[in-house]
């Protein structure tokens, strides 16, 4: 079976400008959304706060839960359904994490006991993150992304050349910004697993990019008559089949995770889903064309025959 026919030759480099415009618009929308929302929507891991996950054995709704929790002052709290509708699971999130909320799960349990039967609900998860830890994790998360990018930049520079590394890094920043932007647009929360997902996306996007770069390098050695632009274009085409196939297999498993993995890692799987799609796109349309742009700005020293 073949999805991408051999000998395919799409003029990808020629459509570079369209791709740049599309990417740039999506990035601008992402950044605008982040600005309008006052930065990413931080979950309790980073903002600090309390989260309680409760499973009810019968159908109920957020209003009824809110009513029964009126007796205990939860402050600024959000009550929302978690996972699929028939799971009857809810999340209660509050901003506070101070000692004023000490024993929160016990107090919630007591308050719920007044309007639900004792066996009708189960507190399944409680997470309390102090503001200090939230700040620490925020800083550590940003640093982790930075270190990953620097590490990759060094490796790619060592294995290839700086101009390739620049293309690779621009492509992965592109992927991360768009994924973060989509999260912001959909109002999804940033938690620790999402940082893990972003780092994975960085790794994955690069994986794809490097396969293309490898082919470009190989072709430069072999064919000396063609212009760099043609070499880049034919290289992308030669590995296109592989790029698409790997995306398909990876998307298949992430889709399995997204559908069957349960509510706890739903957003994590969603981030991967978005990231893999964007990452595949960027390795074809952004990473390699960027090498060309960079080449026109500062030509590499080795004088190649044009």
């Amino acid at each position, binding site marked *: 079976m073949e999805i991408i026919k051999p000998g395919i030759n799409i003029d990808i480099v020629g459509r570079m400008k369209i791709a740049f415009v599309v990417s740039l618009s999506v990035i601008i929308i992402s950044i605008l959304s982040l600005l309008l929302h006052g930065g990413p929507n931080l979950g309790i891991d980073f903002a600090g706060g309390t989260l309680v996950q409760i499973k009810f054995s019968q159908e109920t709704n957020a209003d009824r839960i809110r009513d029964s929790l009126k007796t205990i002052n939860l402050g600024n709290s959000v009550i929302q359904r978690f996972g699929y509708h028939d799971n009857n699971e809810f999340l209660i999130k509050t901003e506070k994490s101070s000692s004023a909320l000490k024993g929160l799960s016990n107090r919630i349990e007591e308050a719920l006991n007044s309007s639900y039967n004792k066996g009708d609900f189960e507190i399944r998860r409680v997470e309390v993150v102090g503001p200090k830890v939230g700040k620490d994790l925020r800083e*550590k998360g940003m640093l982790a992304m930075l270190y990953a990018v620097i590490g990759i930049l060094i490796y790619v520079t060592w294995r290839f050349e700086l101009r390739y590394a620049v293309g690779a890094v621009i492509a992965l920043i592109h992927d991360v910004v768009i994924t973060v932007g989509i999260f912001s647009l959909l109002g999804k929360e940033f938690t620790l697993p999402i940082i893990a997902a972003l*780092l994975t996306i960085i790794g994955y996007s690069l994986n794809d990019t490097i396969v293309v770069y490898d082919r470009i390098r190989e072709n430069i050695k072999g064919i000396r008559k063609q212009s760099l632009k043609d070499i880049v274009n034919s290289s992308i085409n030669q590995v296109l089949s*592989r790029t698409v196939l*790997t995306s398909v297999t990876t998307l*298949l498993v992430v889709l399995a995770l997204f559908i069957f993995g349960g509510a706890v890692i739903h957003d*994590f799987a969603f981030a991967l889903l978005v990231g893999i799609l964007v990452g595949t796109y960027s390795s074809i349309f952004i990473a390699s064309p960027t090498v060309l742009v960079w080449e026109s700005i500062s030509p590499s020293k080795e004088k190649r025959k044009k």
Partner: protein
Amino acid sequence: MSDKNIKVRGIVTLVIIAAALFFLIPSITQKIPSVWSNHTEKIHLGLDLQGGMHLVLEVETEKAVESAMERISNELKDTLMEKRVRFKHLDREGGAVTTLELPNKEASTRFEKILKNDFPNLDIKSSEITEGKEKVYLKIKDKQIASIEKFALEQSLETIRNRVDEFGVSEPEIIPQGKKRILIQLPGIKDPQRAINLIGKTALLEFKLLDESHSLEDALRGNVPAGDAVAYGYKVESETGRRTKIPYLLKKKTLLTGESLEDARVSISNRFGEAYVSLKFDSQGARDFDRITAANVKKHLAIVLDGVVHSAPVIQERISGGNAQITGSFTTDEAHDLAIVLRAGALPAPVRILEQRTVGPSLGQDSINKGILSIIVGSILVILFMVLYYSLSGIVADIALFLNIVLILGTLAAFKATLTLPGIAGIVLTIGMAVDANVLIFERIREELRLGKSPRAAIGGGYSKALLTIVDANVTTLIAALVLFQFGTGAIKGFAVTLSIGIICSMFTAIFVTRIIYDYFIWDKNIKRVSI
């Protein structure tokens, strides 16, 4: 390549697979000989999968420094009085600073001499002279502060370990994090609140006298006599369960603390069936208690725990033998836990909970089931896709994929790594990404075949040309995974671990193992066509 070479590579593969199975099988079934299961361990599940509590505490080590300053100031006061050095207003100025005023030059000189000889841990932070009077600011030396703080953390760790051990948690993990924090992992905890109360209680037990010569009402209005302090206790009505706050006027001086305890046990009173904690002092403590009670017969002695008055019984007579009781309205559990914390000793400084994550066992099981379902569905989809796309070669890739999963799980078990829910996600992701190596190789082989090369040459070319690409591509993902491991806390670390293991194992199975299969058919079976 010769026939013999295939055999050697085959044997290497079989040995590695056998080793992985050796470590993995005990996690899957219990029907194995005990000789085997005794030497291996099951895959260790993270708290998010088996249920339990994750806590990060901060030891308020600055409080330990403050109490050290308090103790030293008292000693300084005593020494200055003993040596007849004139001074005024020796006060602690919040935190770890003490100030005092010296009226003249002579006092200043003598004070400095005493400070130098008897209080080597104190430093003069600053001093100002106005109208011949010198005001001195004292602080503890930085080096000493560091050692007090270090000791406070070590002592807290030790105390918390003792408490958790006595509480009975299987495989707790209690480790320091940085200079002030303690990470605690308690698997399978059923009552998280009770565990938090037990771990977080400072448990400073003090015996103080009630001040009966001054009026409590007056003190409550704000006229607290010098050397006294107001403290509160609670009375719970057994019928209504209502708590009422009761004020006490106590003398500040602590007569005896929990440090003098040898033992603390729960007992049930015969008359009311109420739980109480019976205390036994060590020999020095028993002598002190004997002396204190003898000197204060008919007076009230308050038993204060972490600043709360538990009871203030009248000393009926001199108590020898070193036994005492703490009564109060305890449930049996509360009395039991109080006995544990008193036995384990007080924390040298209060602790604050920075982070708490509790997962119930049912949610953990849910996550395991869903994770396994995702792995199965994901695997089936990828396996079918590969066969569909690459025919028989797809089966070769699928064999590699299956072996890869076995290797990942076997490695997890062998290295006693922890499997978490994100870790399962990492395995699922690896399944999708592991076939990438085979896709790269197969696409290359197809290209070579299209150029009209023989199967033998095409396969050789495909592998050699794809190899570097595969390594390069995987190293970058590995860099991301390693950074994640460094940054990771708990569950996230599990993701980095399975992702890293998965990448490394997949390179082995997808490159090394599949090549053996091809070589076997090409060289041994001499097939002339590649199904790809």
